[in-house]
């Protein structure tokens, strides 16, 4: 009986993420088009794309196809595992198997799949892309980690349910939490790999970077993982900074949660549609500035503010 809840919750989260993620992507594309005065594809286009890709020929251009396969499975499998660690309208299913520190590292691991894929493909553009992707990860991981750590210090706990329930605002005053909210809002586009921080993919410049050599089902899985990341990071953001209303009774709390996630997707779309891409060095300088602010927030948090 004790196992039934987490298993059911995990299956539910995974299924919802897999099904809702393409819808968010479709919404994002449609809205972007409208903002830019275009007609845009139908909202369901992302589902059609995935279905089409799953049936297309799978060309393996790298010298180690085994690693290409492992990398692509790793990429989506890790994202789905993270889905089991995130509260989505009800408590995190794997609350007893991991904590917030594990979450930080799993989010990194989800990126490692793309990196290995790019390396295994081995073309120059892929490698250029993964070099940029890794640099972005180096700059971004600490920002997210500090948000988690600020919450953990205030709550005195790393438990997922505690940290991902607005713990950053704990402590004497909510100062450190507010600073981290600003920092993560300003870097959120980069976490979900959208313009202006989609530097590793940069279609118009290095032709999707790490994914350049991928086609067919492998590309479908990578795209799916990327869409799922948008949902998962939005869910994490909601858990960290906007927890209010989640404790309502089942259908209501759940609906409130997803309304907040969709609101974040809209925000991402709005920013993405109206900005131009940064260069990698500009982006790193920007993240470094945010990191300095985040460290101040961390020091505030350890003094109880």
């Amino acid at each position: 009986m004790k196992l039934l809840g987490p298993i059911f919750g995990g299956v539910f989260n995974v299924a919802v993420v897999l099904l809702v993620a393409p819808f968010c992507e479709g919404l994002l594309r449609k809205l972007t088009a409208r903002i830019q005065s275009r007609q845009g594809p139908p909202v369901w286009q992302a589902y059609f794309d995935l279905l089409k890709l799953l049936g297309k020929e799978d060309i393996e251009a790298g010298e180690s196809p085994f690693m290409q396969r492992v990398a692509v499975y790793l990429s989506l499998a890790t994202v789905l595992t993270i889905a089991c660690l995130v509260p989505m309208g009800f408590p995190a299913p794997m609350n007893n198997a991991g904590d917030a520190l594990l979450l930080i590292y799993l989010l990194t691991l989800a990126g490692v799949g793309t990196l290995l894929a790019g390396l295994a493909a081995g073309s120059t553009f892929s490698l250029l892309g993964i070099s940029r992707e890794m640099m972005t990860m180096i700059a971004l991981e600490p920002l997210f980690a500090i948000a988690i750590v600020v919450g953990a210090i205030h709550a005195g706990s790393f438990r997922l349910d505690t940290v991902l329930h607005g713990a950053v605002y704990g402590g004497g005053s909510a100062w450190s939490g507010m600073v981290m909210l600003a920092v993560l809002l300003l870097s959120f586009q980069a976490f979900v790999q959208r313009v202006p921080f989609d530097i590793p993919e940069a279609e118009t410049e290095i032709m999707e970077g790490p994914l350049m050599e991928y086609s067919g089902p492998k590309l479908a899985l990578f795209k799916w993982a990327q869409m799922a990341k948008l949902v998962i990071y939005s869910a994490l953001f909601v858990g960290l900074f906007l927890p209010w209303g989640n404790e309502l009774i089942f259908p209501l709390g759940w609906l409130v949660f997803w309304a907040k996630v969709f609101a974040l997707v809209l925000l991402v779309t709005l920013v993405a549609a109206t900005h131009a891409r940064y260069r990698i060095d500009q982006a790193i300088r920007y993240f470094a500035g945010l990191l300095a602010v985040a460290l101040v927030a961390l020091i505030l948090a350890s003094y109880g503010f």
Partner: protein
Amino acid sequence: MLTPEQSVVAAILLCLAGAALTLLTSRSKAAAGWLAFAVTAGSAALILPAVWQVLARGPAQPARFFPLPAVGFALRIYVDGLTSLFLLLAVLVAVPASLYSIRYLEHYADYSVARYYPYFLLFLAAMFGLLSTTDMMWFFFIFWQLMTLPGYALIRFEHKNPANIRAANKFLVMMEIACAATMVGAELLAVTGAAATGGATLKYDFDTVSANLPAMLVTRPAATAVAFGLFLVGFGIKMGMWPFGQIWLPDAHPAAPSPVSAMLSGVMIKTGVYGLIRYFLWLVPAGAQADFPLANWGWLIAILGTITLFTGTMQALKQEQSKRLLAFHSIGQIGYILLGAGACLALLPAAGPAGAFHALAALALFGALFHVLNHGLFKALLFLNAGSLLHATGTQDLDKMGGLMKFMPLTAITCLVASFSISGVPLFNGFASKWSIYVATIQGAGGAKYLPVCGVIAILTSALTLASFIKFYGVSFLCRSSALVKEQAARHGRLEVGGLMQVPQVFLAAVCVLLGLVPALAFQLIGAALNASRQGFGTTLADAMTATSGSLTGLEAANNTARFAPLVLAIVLGLMFAVVRFVSKLGGARRRADAPWLCGYAREAECHRYVAHNFYGEIKRYFRWLGGTPRTRPGRQPGLKEH
């Protein structure tokens, strides 16, 4: 049945005898190699039961050997839990390294093994001795020299390359400075301690010094502080702490033959960690805690650790030579161990609800000791991997490698395990130890306000480590075959190393995975070790440990506010893998292998390959001031710009 102390002395004598025998048989490389392996395995067979005996049934009494009443000293050996843990690491690394040496040494056509195996065994004997002697002066000196001089000889093994001789000379000078610093520190404690309480026999003995210390802390606080400062410098040099490590370590590790690099990085620098932990935590009696500035030392060591881990790893990120890259990472990983040890010292005296911070201090020490074990295992494995790469391609230059996974699949898999372990990927052993250090430093915010910042820098550095190993692994095993690799493959037909070199790699990789999936094993081992070394703060720490661990439930620390169940995670991740694989097959897509698209160019020339040098240009540029940038070597094609 031998007592643990007798076993250790027997192992030392066996290694010494083995050194003489391998010298006699050095005509035949294979005979000497097998003999050295047999001796190492024999010493392991002596050490392992002793370790088991201590951990399962508690330590025996310190024992004296070879007394020399005329000069007033004897070899006093004591094997307690802490010693056992490091002895275990020494044999876990030494046996695979000696097995690996047999075939590896055959590719040195110009060098005789007479200058390899005897020194290897002397080196091993010295480590056994250094880890178990209680004499802080003369036998410490003897074992330290017995470790330094053969180490020196092994580093300059390829003496026809002048760079190796320079590296060995640096190693020798730094080790002698470290030896002098540590001995002066011991002299200060012993002499002033004896003056404070009246003379004693065996005045350099650990227990005597420890007994004299409380009085001395009250009467001569300055002299004691200087002595402990000297210990920190001496052991800091040995373990490669910033700023000393950067002087000798990155030159010495790449110069030595790969199995020796594995021993240097996996075990030798850990004797410095052992010394530091032993002197700072076990020497001071728990009753004298009020007079000993634990919090200040903890602050200093934690800050030094944080600087060490960041600088070492950032410098490693810039490297383009395989073994030099690994050597810088040794400095970086030692930083984690120092941070754990420093956090332990800093949290011990923290005021709080009864014992709240004691449990976190114990967790920090668990993390540090677990990372000692883990680093020994995965770094030894990485150096053996680098040795295999060197064996197959004849170069340490990462810019010239590429696509080796196709040619060396087994080495590639073991190297992936090691790379994931050192980068702290969950389900591999490096994660579990880093996790403990993070929990202790971040939860310790209430005890020492600077610790969370150290912890976050450690998390950030972990991403740097990942970046460095993505590069190391990617450019050597993945990417596209380089001209050099194609040429070597055409010449030899087969690049993968032989079975005798694969067995040690597979063994170490298996241990890494095992400790990653069931970190409870290591936690119980370290718990037993602390329980079996009740002296100084060791008693406090052994009693304070509240983290529970079980093979199924995983780790749980700090009153159940942090938990990690690797087996559950492995099952979930495995299930997700199966789901994803199933989904990818749904469309029934056919697979086809084809050449990559080169954006319209007909073929890819060697100078168009994206090589190790090109990675992470922006980050390397922003941190140029941190040093460690490799010199541009002659022969590099001009015009390859950083992107």
